[in-house]
């Protein structure tokens, strides 16, 4: 229960912050009216119709699972998939795609003994936009709070890169931090 709730809240907050920070996203959200309905006893429903007329509906059910329905225009029977919160999050990561390439993945570790401390380790591919800059230039830790703990460059791994480390296109970086910090990293560093 608590788990999906956190996820739900997290997706809401990230949605809100997208609204604040990026005008492009703002526009695209206005293009597709998103209807949300609270269904007593069932959970929350989010539904929108794409430009092409297909409909997508997502249900966060009370039992904690997430059901996604897609209905092709002109078709009467939707097809459905039921997901655990973990799977839904993975799908969400795939769908927000722009930043996260197929090679990026994320692991969340929860230390239950340490007041439920949650740390996420995430990998990213360096894009052209920030190639040639150093960790120091980008002010990664001051701006976002995350730490770059390793870089993988052409079969070679650099553990604990120094602040003067220069990124190259195609580097895979391993970043550690809290979920919110990683979100900030994706927004403020990876898109530069």
């Amino acid at each position, binding site marked *: 229960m608590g788990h999906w709730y956190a996820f739900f809240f997290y997706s809401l907050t990230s949605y809100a912050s997208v609204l604040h920070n990026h005008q492009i996203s703002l526009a695209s959200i206005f293009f597709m009216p998103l209807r949300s309905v609270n*269904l*007593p*006893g*069932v959970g929350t429903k989010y539904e929108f119709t794409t430009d092409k007329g297909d409909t997508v509906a997502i249900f966060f059910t009370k*039992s904690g699972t997430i*059901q996604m*329905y897609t209905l092709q225009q002109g078709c*009467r029977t939707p097809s459905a998939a039921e997901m655990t919160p973990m799977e839904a999050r993975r799908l969400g990561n795939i769908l927000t795609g722009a930043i996260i390439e197929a090679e990026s993945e994320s692991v969340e570790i929860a230390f239950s003994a340490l007041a439920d401390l949650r740390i996420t380790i995430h990998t990213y591919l360096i894009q052209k936009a920030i190639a040639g800059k150093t960790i120091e230039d980008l002010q990664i830790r001051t701006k976002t709070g995350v730490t770059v703990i390793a870089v993988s460059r052409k079969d070679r791994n650099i553990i604990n890169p120094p602040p003067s480390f220069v990124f190259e296109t195609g580097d895979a970086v391993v970043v550690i931090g809290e979920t919110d910090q990683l979100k900030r990293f994706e927004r403020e560093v990876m898109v530069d």
Partner: protein
Amino acid sequence: MESIVLALFVCLVLAIITKYLSIPPIPFYIIGGVLLGKSGFGLVTSDEIGHFFSQMGLIFLLFFMGLELKLERIAANRSAVLTSGIIDLNVNMLIGFVAAYLFGFSLIESAVIASAFYISSTAMAITSLVENRKLMMREAETVIWLMVFEDLVLIIFLAIISAGDQDPLLFLLKIAGVLAILYAIAHYGKEFLIGLLDRSDELPLLFTFAAVLTTASFSMYIGVPETMMVIALGAALATTDPDAFEQHARPFKDVFLVVFFVFFGITINLGGGIDMVMILTISLLAIVSKFISGILTGIFIHESALAGIEIWGNTIGRGEFSIALAALYGSPLVATVIAAMVIVTSIVGAFTAKYCTGLRKWMAMPGRRPPHHAHTGR
């Protein structure tokens, strides 16, 4: 003590089997109870502990219902709730009442049977919508709001029937007083309650349990119906952190409610002059009358009688609330009739919920099976 352990063990086995086959467990709990009780092998008799557990089950069921009852949300969806709700209420109450009365039940007994006959199982309807992946259908929303409306009617029914022989003015004053206390606590203690529920120790569970029990016994003490007051408690607490309360009340509800169903089955007396024809007729009528109300709702809300088949298929099952009404107000014979109706409708309902979409398509194209809808979303 042995009897409750035996009953619990049977519940556990039944729960495992029904979950594995994904069929509604409620009818099987009742059948299990009937087999254990005096109509079956006579292994379990309703004792003090069993009675207490059943009582808890009922109270937590109603408390849970109260938590779901967000009045402002209902008000925002008035039109959707009202049309379908009123059709459902009139058709089913009327058919249920007339049928019971013609079979020779008294007015009060007929009213109890009619209410149990009318009220579909929210748990079964919602489970079937989720498990059969039907949430996206337009009819699903109608079904969900129908369940909300039925809950409201149940509350009104509880109020009317329990006001019975009391001085109406004093009765209303008492109810208003308790309501005021509950809402005041929820309003002024909101911060405190939210903080309390957020803790990870035993406090949230303990508080939830104590709050429900205190409300129930206090209501009994001052002579207002405890059933209504625990619903009111749920509705009042839903203004603080309903999800947390649901989470903390769920363990109690889940366990006690199962015991409630089994002990209800145990007290059923099938021996001696039970009119099987009457019981079967009422059970079949319960299916037919939901068909009529479903088709009417389909026509009025979705402008399609076929949509009504979907509504029908998901609302046939009578369950927890019908049993609750039987346990609260039913004579032994009334309880038996309602139990049989719940068993028949919930088993039939499990099948219709699964196959009504197919039935609807088949009816939409008479004479031939639709070839291009090979996938049914299941």
